[in-house]
C-alpha cells in the first residue's frame, strides 16, 4: 500500500509500505526522521501527525488517552493523531499525513 508523508520542512515522501503495522513503524522503517521516543508505548507524543482532511473519517480521530497526550502540543489540531495509534489497513491505501514539528527529528 502507499502512504504520503509531508515533513515539517515541506519535503513530501511517497512511501510504499506493508499493511498491518502502525503508521509510526512504517515511517520509521522508511527511514523518515520521526522521533517516536517511546517506540509506540503511548507514553509520549513524539510521533504526532496531522491527518489530511480527506482521510480523517477513515483513520478516525484521537481517542481519549491519545487526546490527553496531544493536548499539550503547540501543533495540536482537530485532525491530530499519534501515528503509533494508526494501524495501516488496506482501507488506508493512499493515506496522507503531515508530520508535526514536535515529532520531527531536527
Amino acid at each position, binding site marked *: 500500500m502507499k502512504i504520503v508523508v509531508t515533513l515539517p520542512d515541506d519535503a513530501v515522501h511517497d512511501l510504499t509500505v506493508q499493511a498491518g503495522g502502525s503508521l509510526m513503524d512504517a515511517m520509521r*522503517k522508511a*527511514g523518515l526522521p520521526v522521533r517516536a*521516543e517511546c*517506540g509506540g*508505548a503511548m507514553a*509520549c507524543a513524539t510521533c504526532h501527525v496531522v491527518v489530511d482532511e480527506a482521510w480523517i473519517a477513515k483513520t478516525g480521530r484521537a481517542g481519549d488517552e491519545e487526546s*490527553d497526550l496531544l493536548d*499539550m502540543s503547540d501543533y495540536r489540531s482537530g485532525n491530530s493523531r499519534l501515528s503509533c495509534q494508526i494501524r495501516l489497513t488496506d482501507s488506508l491505501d493512499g493515506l496522507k499525513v503531515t508530520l508535526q514539528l514536535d515529532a520531527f*527529528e531536527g
Partner: protein
Amino acid sequence: MTDSVVIIGAGQAGGQTALSLRQNGFEGTITLIGDEPYVPYERPPLSKSYLAGDVAEERMFMRPAAFYAEKHIVLMPRTTVARIDRAAKKVRLAGGTQLPYTELVLATGGRVRKMTCPGADLPGVHYLRNIDDVLGFRDRITAGLKLVIVGGGYIGLEVAAVAIKRGCRVTVLEMLPLVLNRVVAPEMSHFYTDVHRTAGVDLRTSTGVTAFEGDGKVERVRFGDAVIDADLVIVGIGIIPNVELAADAGLAVDNGIMVDECTRTADPDIFAAGDCSNHFNAIVGARLRLESVPNALAQGKAAALAILGRPEPVVEVPWFWSDQYDLKLQMTGLSRPGDQIIIRGSMAERKFSACYLREGVFVACQSVNMAKDFIQSKKLIADRATPDPAKLADPAIALRDL
C-alpha cells in the same frame, strides 16, 4: 583530516548521535561501534512486549539496517574497544585495529549488576539487558514454570507481569522492605505490591537471596533458613555504568562519566551520552545519572549538535514509563524521601497520580492510567510551580489549570 566521529556504544544514545549528526548536516565519517550483533534498538520492550513475544526484533530497531548504509554510517557490530589513546586521538579495538577520531562519543551504557552469592554462576540464572539475554530464556516462560525473580524494580516487576500471564508460578524476592523503593513513594509501592499479589505473584520483601542451589543447574533459591524451588531465575538488580574506558583514559568519573550540559567531557573532543553519563540537570538542580530512553536520545542529539559547533544544553524534565498488566505508569521528575505526597484520583479504580511537593514546589508526578496528568505535569515541574495542595488533590481540576 576530514571530520571523523567515532561512537562507542550502539544503544539508543549512540544510535541517536549518529542519526542526529546526519540529520543536521554532518558530512564526515561516522563509525558506530557496538558489542551486540544488532543495529541500535529500543530496550524498553525487552521486559515487556518482546518478552511476551508480541513484537519482532525489527520492530524495536531505531532505523532499519539499510538506513545506516544509505546514510554512510559505518556499523561495527560485535566489536569491543580495548582503550582510548587521547594523545594520538585513536581508539584501539580488542583485535588491535586502531581507529583515528576527530571527535569521540562514549555511549557505553551500563551492564547488569551480577549476583555474587554461592551458585550465582549456575546455568538457569539469567539477567536481562539485551536481546540475546531475552532469547536465552524467553522460550521457557511457559505455563507451570517455577520462575524466581530477584529484585523488585521495574525489570523484575515487568517480567513478573508477563510471566504470570503465561501461567508461570512467579516468586519475586526483594531485599528491601518495599518494591520500586528507589523511585516511588511508599503509597505507590504498596499499590504495586497489591496488584502483583492479586495477580498471583508470590511477592516477598525484606528477602535477600543467600544462595542458588542445584545439581548442574539452578533448582532452588535460598534466603537465610528458607528455600524455594526454581526452574529458572531472572535477576534484575540494576546496572553499573560502563565508565572504565573513560577512567582509563584519564577522564573524570563519578557515578558516570562527567560531562557538561552539552555532553562534553573535560577533553573538548570527547563526549558522553546516555546511561553512562553524569551531568547537571538544570530543572532538577543537581548532577545526576539517568537510566532513561528520553535522556539517551536528548543527550545523543546534544552530542551531535556540540560536535557540529552548535552546542545546546539539554534542559529536560526526566521522564520514564513502565507497563505492567493493564497499568500504564508514567513518571516525570525525580521524587525523594521526605517529599510531600498528594494522591489525585482513585487507587481502587487504578486511575490516579502521586504528586510530589518539595517545600511547596511541584517536583515529580507518577501517574497510573492518567496520561493527562503525566503530560501536563512536565510543564509544572519545568516551571517550578507551587500549586495549592488542596486543589492538587482534586482530580477534577486539571494540572494545567493549577
